[in-house]
């Protein structure tokens, strides 16, 4: 993807939330990334790493503290009001919780039609037809449009959320943990649906999740986030076979593989403690407090490792990336 123009490019994006008494939560710190047309980029990390915040900055549901987000060459962070609203058509979002992401007082038809009405795209019968078509596309009965969200199961509700996101024919869809609230047997349905839709409508996805096995399955490239920073970016095969950041390595080893034979032979890279508070992130490399290979204090605790190229299409932010043990 060397010479292609990215669909979306984020540059040095920072997001701090005020946390009272002059402190702030450093949710996203100096993140730069590119998303190319037609690809699926996975964004993984544990709770509190800032992945959902980053997703909302990209869709401009949250304003950045600093930095730029270019979509099709236009800096979204400079747009306000009506101009920004017009850009929302191209950037849609699928939410994690299929229960709280649908307004319980609106019919499914109204929920899906709302974006169309917001932009005055379709009216009357044409609008109804489009809604029914969208319901069909996501695998629901088109005559369900008069029902209310609570009449549906979690998986069906997530399909409704997907139909709503598709209504405006967006270019980029940010899916924030779209399957983690669903039952195991339903997760595959939604993943398959998203893959089918991507082919059919040439969609670009930013797929945010905490489950690296799911992310690896659906993504072309994977970005790993830790405490507000992207620590590694690589092709999804490469990141598993050849992780270049100790955190990625630990994350990979911690995910249980549903195969007792394989699982009994794996070694877990134990991390000391738990994620530090994003109010007071560690100095230098933010991972140094838990890192099994950190050299302290220099350089890991006093210098910040840049996210640099370690191999072809593979970047990691670690001074000692060659020491990260290979494979799992």
């Amino acid at each position, binding site marked *: 993807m060397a010479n292609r123009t990215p669909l979306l490019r984020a540059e040095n994006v920072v997001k701090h939330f005020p946390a009272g008494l002059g402190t702030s939560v450093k949710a996203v710190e100096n993140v730069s990334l590119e998303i190319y047309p037609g690809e699926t980029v996975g964004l993984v990390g544990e709770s509190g790493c800032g992945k959902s915040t980053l997703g909302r900055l990209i869709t401009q549901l949250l304003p950045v503290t600093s930095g730029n987000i270019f979509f099709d060459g236009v800096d979204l962070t400079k747009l306000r009001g009506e101009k920004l609203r017009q850009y929302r058509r191209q950037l849609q979002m699928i939410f994690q919780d299929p229960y709280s992401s649908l307004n319980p007082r609106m019919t499914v038809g109204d929920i899906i039609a709302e974006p169309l009405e917001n932009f005055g795209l379709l009216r009357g019968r044409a609008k109804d037809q489009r809604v029914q078509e969208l319901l069909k596309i996501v695998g629901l009965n088109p005559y369900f449009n008069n029902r209310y969200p609570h009449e549906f199961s979690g998986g069906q509700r997530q399909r409704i959320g997907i139909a709503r996101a598709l209504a405006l024919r967006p270019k980029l869809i940010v899916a924030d943990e779209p399957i983690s609230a669903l039952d*195991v047997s339903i997760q595959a349905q939604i993943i398959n649906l998203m893959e089918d839709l991507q082919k059919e409508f040439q969609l670009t996805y930013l797929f945010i999740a905490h489950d690296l096995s799911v992310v690896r*399955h659906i993504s072309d490239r994977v970005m790993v986030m830790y405490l507000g920073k992207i620590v590694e970016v690589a092709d999804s095969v490469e990141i598993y076979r050849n992780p270049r950041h100790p955190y990625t390595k630990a994350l990979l080893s*911690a995910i*249980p593989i*549903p*195969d007792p034979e394989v699982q009994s032979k794996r070694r877990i890279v134990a991390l000391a403690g738990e994620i530090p508070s994003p109010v007071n992130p560690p100095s230098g490399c933010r991972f140094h407090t838990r890192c099994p290979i950190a050299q302290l204090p220099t350089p890991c605790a006093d210098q910040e490792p840049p996210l640099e190229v370690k191999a072809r299409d593979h970047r990691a932010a670690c001074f000692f990336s060659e020491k990260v043990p290979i494979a799992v």
Partner: protein
Amino acid sequence: MSQPVLQIKDLKTQFFTDDGVVQAVDGVSFDLHPGETLGIVGESGCGKSVTALSILRLVQEPGRIVNGQILFRGDDIVTMSDDEVREIRGKDIAMIFQDPLSSLNPVLTVGFQIEEAIEAHRKVPSKMALSRAVELLKQVRIPAAESRVRDYPHQFSGGMRQRAMIAMGLANAPSILIADEPTTALDVTVQAQILELLRDLNRDLKTAIILITHNMGVVASLCTRVLVMYAGRVVEQGPVERIFKDPQHPYTWSLLQSIPRLDSDRHDRLLSIEGFPPDLIRPPRGCRFNPRCQFRVDRCLHDDPALMNVGPDQDAACWVTMRRALAPNGELRG
């Protein structure tokens, strides 16, 4: 094999709601041997949690155990007096839950709550209770246990709270620990730590563990035997290697095919189980999985299969079984 420490026989637990009777657990039977790690897997609403709650008679209104026996060392928990059950709870059988925060009292220190768990079953001087609490916190690997014992739950991280819950569960050296989705609310790296802890406790203390989860990977890394539940029934049970390698019930098989594996580079389409779990007020006739089963035959529509032996120590409730469904001659596939 040794005498089972717990025997569940034809357990039926139902919820009497205004919409009708929910057959949450419908004829579940299994044995648990001392020191065993048994996984109960299934999706939400399959009855795995209700089974666990039933064992300790913790099912609340409008739920009731309507049938069956729960024999703990031969005594039936179902027919015991409330006092007798209370005596068993926490002492012989302990339970930990998914959300440790709502199981811990926010205005009492963690240490106090562990001491309380100890003192609930025997009189000990408070000095001893305190030192035992510290010892337990050390056992679940909470760093600086001597000072953390005076902390309140909110000062603990999610993983530490779950450790504290486990410590509380272990307070009276129970013979059975029931863990209901103990790692679901935790991050994977923390999950790995908790699973390792449970594994070590099982090995060192010989505590039998019933692990209730929806996560096949978690089962694979901790359990020796698995019970797969669907719609209130056990549809398959057996040693963990057999269930993962050679599942015989189409539900177990499909579930394993539908989850992406970390170690697979193939980006094949996942197998998806169409539809969703049935309404347990009016469960389907015949096999409860039949509306979603891609291998069903006519018999499945009206004849309800019981667990049948399908391999060494392995049972499945299926008329077809995967062995025949996937047979090369394809006698069953249309």
